[in-house]
């Protein structure tokens, strides 16, 4: 084999191994704070399950990490999603939001779910169970309308 091809392979290998040492933060919390959305509203069980499975990984202080999400470069991607997702909407801090902000976020959830923008498609690629069915979308819509 030509030597430069060998070098390319070796360098790529080194990069792949090297990036495994890039630290990423772990988004997990033992307690359920009183500001958690589950303590702010009574949420029907079926709606709660949808939120937990499809949204909480990026929008709460508790991410469920499957094994591959700890491997780079997936870990960096997940880290970025969690950071940006929590900034927009954090279900663990929902009780701290002003009434106006709560209204904004609930409105936004309805629209994002209806338009199929959330959960992010780059995420449902790996988490098939997080994809929302038409019926699940309807359950979220109705829950928020009736709040």
């Amino acid at each position, binding site marked *: *084999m030509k030597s430069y*091809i060998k070098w390319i*392979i070796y360098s*790529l*290998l080194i*990069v*792949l191994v090297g*990036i495994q040492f890039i630290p990423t933060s772990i988004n997990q919390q033992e307690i359920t704070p009183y500001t958690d959305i589950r303590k702010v509203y009574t949420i029907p069980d079926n709606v709660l399950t949808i939120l937990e499975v499809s949204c909480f990984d990026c929008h709460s202080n508790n991410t469920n990490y499957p094994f591959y999400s700890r491997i*780079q*470069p997936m870990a*960096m*991607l997940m880290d*970025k999603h969690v950071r940006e997702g929590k900034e927009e909407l954090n279900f663990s801090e929902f009780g701290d939001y*002003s*009434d*106006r*902000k709560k*209204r*904004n976020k609930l*409105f*936004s959830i309805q*629209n994002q779910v*209806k*338009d199929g923008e959330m959960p992010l498609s780059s995420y449902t690629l790996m988490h098939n169970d997080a994809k929302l069915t038409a019926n699940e979308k309807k359950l979220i819509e109705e829950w928020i309308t009736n709040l």
Partner: protein
Amino acid sequence: MKKVMTVLMAGGFFVLTSCAGSDSTPTEKPTETTEQVNSSTQTEEVTKKDNLSSILNSYFEMSENLTNDSAADAAKSSEKLSNALKDFQGDQLSNKEYKEVDEIMNSSIEHAGHITENAGDIHHQREHLVLLSLDIKDLIEIVGTDQKVYEAYCPMANNNKGAIWVTNKNEVNNPFMGQSMPKCGKINGEIK
């Protein structure tokens, strides 16, 4: 061997692109800060009187852009709106009013920011206009304005759930429906 190589190449490419992605955020920062400096020097006199005129004028401009289906222009005028909102000082407000206005500011700056970021998605811009308009209406009711302003309503906006907007003309130019139905809706009355 060929297989191993393609896998490694793909891996390497993924790494390079994902790094490039995370790099892009810090480089955006400088433009933001220079704009903020500009706007605070421009609007010095206006804020002294607790006047809402720069806020309202940029809101009206943005609303007109949306009526004309121009998402790119709406993104620009909503940036002006963000700056005007950030410059507002509620010196003459009572404590209670100030608290409410502070929440309105946080909320409306967030909506305006989304409208700026979604220059390519007029549907999403109009979603944020629904609640932004409620913020602007509440702001006028608390702070007051010298201008004549009206509340307009369209039952078809907001996925047929209905939505209001604020206008300085006593006629309907619908920012939610745009050029498909610019005259849909009615004027509810003056906001005071």
